[in-house]
């Protein structure tokens, strides 16, 4: 799969963080769409048909868990890999996210943009779709 074909949706309300990750992902050849709240994230997840979604937990309106639940309940987005990217590292949140079908749970402060970009590479490599 050519990297230029891979579209990433970042659902992230912190403009500085979104801009930083976008910079890295674009440099690595991905195309990036940013949503600043949960509702916009759900809309773009359907309209833009991303190959991959990064999802923040603390968001205006719908929070990350609600967004994830709805993504999983929608046929068009059901199988799109989602990585949770958050400032919250609590094990119970991680567990909840993984149960809802997230592929990975990354803590922002511990994840460099390079590591983030690598996580896309891993997940868009040929592999079985995550079961839901």
């Amino acid at each position, binding site marked *: 799969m050519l990297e230029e074909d891979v579209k990433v949706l970042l659902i992230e309300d*912190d403009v*500085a*963080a979104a801009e*930083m*990750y976008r910079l890295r992902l674009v440099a690595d050849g991905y195309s990036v769409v940013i949503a600043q709240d949960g509702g916009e994230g759900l809309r773009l997840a359907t309209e833009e048909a991303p190959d991959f979604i990064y999802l923040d937990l603390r968001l205006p309106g719908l929070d990350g868990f609600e967004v994830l639940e709805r993504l999983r309940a929608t046929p068009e987005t059901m199988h799109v890999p989602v990585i949770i990217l958050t*400032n*919250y590292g*609590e094990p119970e949140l991680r567990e909840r996210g993984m149960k809802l079908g997230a592929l990975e749970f990354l803590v*922002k402060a511990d994840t460099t943009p390079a590591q983030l970009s690598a996580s896309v590479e891993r997940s868009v490599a040929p592999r079985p779709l995550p079961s839901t």
Partner: protein
Amino acid sequence: MPDPASAWDDPVATDATGRLFRESVNLASRVASGGGSRRDVWLLQLRSDVLTCIAASDTAAIDDRGPYRVSEHPRFDQAITSGEIVEGDSQAVLPVRAQGTVVGLLVVGGTGGLDIEERDTLTALATIVGLGISQAMTVDELLQETERSRRLERLKSEFLNIAAHELRSPLGIIRGYSSMLSEGMLPERERLVALSRIAEKAEEMARLISDMLETARLETLGLEMELEPVDLVEVIDDAMEAMRPVVGANHRLVLSAPREPIAVVADRARLTTMLTNLIDNAIKYSPAGGAIEIVGEHDGRVASVLVRDHGIGINAEQAHLLFTRFGRLVTPETSHIRGTGLGLYLARETARLHGGDIAVTPTPGGGSTFTVVVPLA
């Protein structure tokens, strides 16, 4: 040592000690009857140099509760100073001690001297009353200590929460950009953006840490103001300058202040921090952007600074909670906005330590206006 007076008044201590006082004065009244009619007995509480009746035997007239000035009653004065029983024609006065200090007097009325047995029993009763007060003082001390521990415990867990979440957010940006810089992957223009983002987020972390330290200091030692003559207009300028890097493309800081200085006596650094916190809030709580007006003015008596945004606004009924520690108002519109709940608490404490105060009112048409007033120099 705790204030003995507060132990007498303590609502928890009052139930038990109140009963002890009543029983004691009635028992004293019976044992001091000397086989004849019962004597009146009063228990007086000593607070600085004033005595107030807090218990009287059933026989005594309770309408005469004092207060009595110690200096106007030589016999009371003598008993307090000597710590010994003082007997006169119509009265015997026994000092009541708690934790080594005279905290009150047991006064036995009626004519005729006391026999040895009566005197010994009354002295023992005064000791028992004193022990009761000592207990109440200890309870009071423990309650205060418990309350303090509870506050500090809460502070500790809130600080852990701030460290876990609020500090991580700017840290993530600093780490992210610095890793990209060291990989050498950013083009020239983006390098400059990265550097200014790092500076801005380091500034944000510094503010968070300073708020945490100030709160901890306030809770344990109290804040010591470094007061000096200061031009408020300059302080406003400094605060605006400090916030410049944080102001994004969709916000504008608009200053309105007189050309001449506004002289106040203030802790310059703290006042500046307070204003930067207010501007930071104005930015955070007006996500759609717009002007943030900062107005410096005075009316010849007090100086005021207004920070006015056109953002989400605040529910007026809950506004008073804003200035309490960790008193952030979380609503569906604001739940995602980062904050420690310390900024406005510190702002109010700072304003009050300057002899002023802070208030919030709705901005006409939407948003909030925070007004800080401090006395003119």
